[in-house]
């Protein structure tokens, strides 16, 4: 299965289709960090919100690069479950690379600053919170991208609709005072937590919420794949 993951990642890179989400992410980060300096935890919280739709889009592109018949060949070769898992793993690896870029970017462009006030978080704590919130984004974004992939929804139009709905819905339903926040992954809530009081129980709760949402979305993806044969 690892060989299949590598083959899919190689296909993703060699087609050049990895460039579009990478550029989109860099432009978004440029705008984000171009406005001034912020402390790491706060900056990374917003960065994670920005990164979420980019990673979902990147996942959809990665899964859509492979022709349908080649995907079926892989299924015959490694079995149904491993073929599905290899796609998700490949998208996860690509997402982790993007997370590394996102974490490094503000330091490269001078977009972050150290503590200003004695009550401010230290840089290591801020970076740790930033790492947590970005890792929280990965499974949710991969799940949303998989749901939007051609193998799941068929036509390209439906895929774009799922991506747009998922991206916008995550922001809108995640706003403070939302009636049904649990319908979306807790990206907005996590961003607010990094900027405010990040109690351990809150972090654990948000992590569980994100994993549960991602599991449900992956379940939906697998169900769609099964239904589509």
């Amino acid at each position, binding site marked *: 299965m690892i060989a299949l993951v590598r083959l899919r990642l190689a*296909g993703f890179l*060699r087609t050049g289709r990895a460039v579009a989400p990478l550029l989109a992410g860099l432009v978004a980060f440029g705008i984000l960090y171009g406005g001034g300096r912020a402390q790491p935890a706060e900056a990374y919280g917003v960065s994670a919100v920005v990164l979420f739709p980019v990673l979902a889009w990147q996942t959809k592109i990665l899964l859509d690069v492979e022709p349908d018949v080649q995907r079926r060949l892989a299924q*015959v070769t490694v079995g149904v479950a491993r073929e599905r898992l290899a796609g998700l793993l490949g998208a996860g690896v690509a997402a982790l690379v993007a997370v590394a870029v996102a974490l490094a970017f503000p330091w490269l462009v001078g977009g972050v600053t150290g503590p200003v006030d004695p009550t401010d978080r230290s840089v290591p704590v801020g970076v740790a919170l930033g790492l947590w919130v970005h890792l929280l984004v990965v499974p949710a974004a991969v799940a949303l991208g998989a749901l939007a992939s051609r193998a799941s929804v068929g036509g390209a139009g439906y895929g774009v609709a799922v991506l747009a709905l998922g991206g916008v819905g995550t922001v809108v339903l995640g706003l403070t005072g939302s009636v049904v926040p649990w319908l979306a992954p807790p990206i907005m809530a996590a961003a607010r937590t990094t900027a405010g009081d990040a109690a351990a129980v809150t972090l654990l709760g948000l992590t569980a919420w994100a994993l549960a949402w991602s599991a449900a979305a992956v379940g939906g993806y697998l169900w769609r794949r*099964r*239904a589509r044969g």
Partner: protein
Amino acid sequence: MRLENVWSRYHRRGPWVLRGVDVRIGPGEVAVVLGRNGVGKSTLLQVAAGVLRPARGRVTDRPGRVGWVPERFPADQPFTVARYLTGMGRTAGLDRAAADEAVTAWTDRLGLAAFRAVRLPELSKGTAQKVGIAQAMLRPPGLLVLDEPWEGLDATTRELVPELIDEVLAAGGAVLVSDHRGETVRLPGARRWTVADGAVTEETSLPEGAVAVIEVAVPTARAAGTVARLRAEGHQVLRVRTDARPAPPPARPGGDDPAPDDPAPDDPAPDDPVAVDGADVAVDSAAGEAR
């Protein structure tokens, strides 16, 4: 492997392509899937290969290793022939050295050696089809499913397909192959499944113990040795003659006596007059052995 009451369609409310199909194929057997265009041959093959999940019914005892050659190889991929095949070999569970070795062997055998560094989208249809065959054979499959494998192939490779099938069968595998070009005449011992109106029926044209006659031309000096080897493999040598014209139908085993001008079929002495230029050997073989 057995398909039990298999129903298949492509959409929830779409028309049924297969309706209650019940077929089985065992180790060492080959079945040719016949039928008009769009009748469901590829669907049947994909269900058998595990590409499609039947809406109803089930597939049991599918061999662990399946090789599937799709009707159209997906050449729109950013790899060279060698990189793609190596990747598929690794995906199939071969280690690096074994994958390289298998890729070299199969690209040589299928005439792809000159194309190893060529990118898949640049291949002609026939060459891409060869890559499709190669990826299915990198690990010897227990079930080989060939969807119109002769499509676009050159004459040399068309001749090679029955050889590959024979090798899979000899190793105890099973083979399913579809064909609408009449190429399966090259598989005289194959079972014949006809797909029509969602059902699969098996033709029983071959009676029990049916035989096929193969005429083989060998250099005169090797005639005696060839006869001995064929007999050692269990074939029945009907006669040995010295002209290269196609022979008239030979006598059936246990039937009429051989023609008076033919040597005794079962006892050509090593110094028999077969050692003449252009000698032919007519071999009568059980149908199952003649694949």
